């Protein structure tokens, strides 16, 4: 997996093509909006049985990124579970998969709006976490400095030579960095949506995920 090195708030970071953020200096990998258990929640609420492989697929990709980065600290930036009940309904295999990933690593679950309380899972549960000079939380707060968040599932659509290309994307400006959703069954919010466009500063950029991540000025 290729990655793209960039600097944010004075720190050298790397955007992985999968949508994970890697901070080599602290051996730290950060992923956002895993939405584990989403197919279970949909089945529970509507009876619609989507292929129940999303959790496995998300964790498989996370395992590959951990192998690539050899990170010793993992921050899941909220909405890690589609809801609290979904976190309780993971299969034994899926729990084992998570435990295997956690083994020998510092693991932090940041609370999100889908999973506001602690989940029955190893690791540390926090509302937010600071690793100087950066602060990790689920939803961006206007005006905060050096903040890394998720929540919005940003994606960017480009039209190039008649081709429309849409990719989940990192958004960043001088103060904040917003991660794309990492979960398999997640959609995205276009960067042109007012909710995102208004949030980002004038100098904002987007990093498009994919086999070779690319950085561009934020399309608004």
């Amino acid at each position: 997996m290729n990655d793209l090195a960039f600097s944010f708030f004075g720190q050298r970071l790397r955007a992985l093509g999968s949508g994970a953020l890697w901070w080599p200096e602290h051996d730290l990998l950060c992923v956002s909006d895993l939405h584990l258990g989403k197919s279970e929640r949909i089945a529970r609420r509507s009876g619609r049985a989507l292929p129940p492989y999303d959790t496995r697929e998300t964790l498989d990709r996370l395992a590959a990124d951990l192998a690539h980065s050899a990170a010793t600290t993992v921050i899941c930036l909220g909405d890690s579970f589609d809801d609290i009940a979904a976190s309780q309904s993971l299969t034994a295999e899926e729990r084992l998969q998570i435990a295997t990933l956690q083994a020998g690593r510092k693991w932090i679950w940041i609370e999100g709006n889908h999973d506001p309380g602690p989940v029955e899972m190893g690791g540390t549960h926090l509302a937010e976490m600071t690793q100087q000079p950066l602060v990790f939380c689920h939803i961006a707060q206007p005006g905060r400095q050096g903040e890394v968040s998720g929540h919005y599932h940003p994606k960017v659509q480009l039209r190039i030579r008649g081709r429309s290309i849409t990719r989940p994307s990192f958004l960043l400006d001088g103060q904040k960095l917003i991660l794309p959703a990492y979960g398999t069954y997640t959609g995205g919010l276009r960067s042109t949506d007012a909710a995102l466009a208004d949030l980002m500063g004038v100098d904002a950029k987007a990093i498009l995920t994919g086999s070779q991540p690319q950085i561009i000025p934020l399309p608004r």
Partner: protein
Amino acid sequence: MTAIPPLIHAWFANRGWSVHPHQKTLFDRRLDPATLLIAPTGGGKTMAGFLPSLAELADGRHTGLHTIYVSPLKALAADIRRNLRIPVDEIGLPIRIEDRTGDTSATQKKRQRADPPHILLTTPESLALLTSYEDAPRMFDGVQRVVIDEIHALADSKRGDQLMLALSRLQAMCPGLRRVGLSATVEDPEAIARFLARHPDPCRIVQADPGPDPDISMLKTREMPPWSGGGAAYAIPAVMEQIKQHRTTLIFHNTRAQAEIFFRNLWLANDDGLPIGIHHGSLDRQQRERVEAAMVRGDLRAIVCTGSLDLGIDWGDVDLVIQVGAPKNVKRLVQRIGRANHRYNAPSKAILVPANRFEVVECVAALQAAQAHDLDGDPRGPGPRDVLCQHILITAAAGPFDASDLFAQVVSAGPYSHLTRAEFDTCLAFCATGGYALQAYDRWQRLRRRDDGCWQLRDPRAAQRIRMNLGTIQDTDTLKVRLRRNRGGKPLGEVEEAFAASLTPGDTFLIGGQVVRYEGLREMVVEVSRRANKKPKIATFSGTKFATSTQLSDRILRMFARPEWPELPGHTAEWLQLQRELSLLPTRDRLLIESFPNDGRENLCVYGFAGRNAQQTLGLLLTKRMEETGLAPLGFVATDYATLIWGLDAVTDPRALFDLSALRDGLDRWLAGNAVMKRTFRASATIAGLIERNTGGQRKSGRQATFSSDILYDTLLKYDPDHLLMQITREEAMRGLVDFSRIESMIARIGDRIDLVRLDRVSPLAAPLLLEVGKVPVKGAAEERLLAEESARLLQAAGLSQP
């Protein structure tokens, strides 16, 4: 045997009519379990279908529903109601006739369920919906007859499969139910009879006198048709002249967008201000109804239309049918021509208008085939299982059911008569639990088995969602278009969501014959104004794209083989001659491939003449091979006769790509990841109930909560590749969008006889393809290269450097 009641006979006599022989036959055989009538338009087909019902209802003793009439079009149901009222009122029969379609008001629908009319006129979807209510047995109690109009059109589609499944349930509620099918001329009446009848009931086929041969010609114009495009603007003056010479002209187009462009051009040339209307499926309902009403009154001199007028609405005085664009299939052409001269025993008059130079060839071939009564068509495979899954859910919505009883009903439907119990059980398991190899969340399954063995919905509220998502018509997501006003302006119609997403304020497009200016999107409604003075961008309506039939393609290739073409207009003959001089003309037993640079890209044009869908598949297979060999393909476009592929790098040795046995061997693997499969998956997953189009008020708005069905496809491909929906997707793709059977017959036809021609520029025959719409992107290395270039360009333009 009772005769036709004297009252009805007297009405016929008063009008100076006699009962047609086929009407008499249908009446005499009215107690048969199933009868198929094949008759040309205007042959008194509908009356033949209803005569037994009128006779049986004449004494006023029947209570409740007696006859259900099903037509593929809402408009047809309403039209038949009006036309049937006339004899019923004039004879003074005590018969209540009502229609029930998606357009019927909720109050009216509710009343119909409590107190049904004698004759109900409806559509397959509305009928299926009726069977989903718990009170269905009460409403359908005593139904004697079902009349299916335009059954030839339904038998070609999933709508027909759904209808036959609904009839199998109806038949279980009304054991004496008799079926009558009304069909236009078709190439294989036996197949329609098997489709119609309860398996294994016999079905008599009654053939009405086909009437005189139609008078078909190709439009003579002073202007030459252009090299490419579908607008046929060159023909406007000549078409205008024809409209003036006839009472009422129907002008058929193959797509909605073409109809819009043509209508606009016609209107600009309409110096005499003749009343001309437009009618197609994307227009607002009220607007369509206004046009239909004006047509019935005889107020219009011409209607520009699409397949929305293909079927039997009685337009009365139509004396000319014009087909703009090549008819892709001779059978449909003959059926469309039947729209003219709605009177029995008068020849229909039709004129073909090729939109471009290649279509001249296609039109001449179609004309010759129609004159030779050489109808085309491909046999349809067994009933698709996604429709069966929906049927199981609809059945569950009506109440608990026994699996064996339901299976027995399903195999009594013609299209499903060969279904095995194991196949049925797989569909049932899919509806119940999702049917995945991984049994994950079974306690949340949609259907559960009760202690008595019957299946029922776990959550009864699911019935409502099943009803909301009922149907097999795959409309791409569309958005309503309205004029911007203070409070909800005038509705104009609909455009595809993807088209709407491509608009920026100020853009202009055509809808309903007018140019409008895009102002913005509000609550999923496209708001427009009339402040438009620019040349319009054209709304890209989704219209079914039919592939040219095998028979027609063969005719064209045979035509190419001739030394000269006296039957073709001079300009077209010269064009073909030029192609023969500069390159080669494709022939039936060889494959012509041209390679040439154009506009900074390298192009490869493959003339397979295998029909649009198969050429599309060929495009997918070839670009995959190019991707593997590092040739960086960017995309391709397919027409009925060729595939044009473009890429960043020149293809210096195209021969390496055309190892035909390798193409076949790798098909499965190659198909797995491509866009056509994903589109097919989306359609089947929606019909089968995995993806919901309607979630009850909360319209999908492209926000975070929704994700692409492509992700579901990718997930299944990786973890559960043999899942029912993946099987269905492969089956559908092989015979539908992928149409691999036609590639195989092409391979068999040409063997290793491939002609490669390297040109320094585009050839006469390839030129039209450069302007084709419907280009398919290839998401591969080329896309990454484009992104990298664009990123560098944008950063530089913004004065930024790499971080």
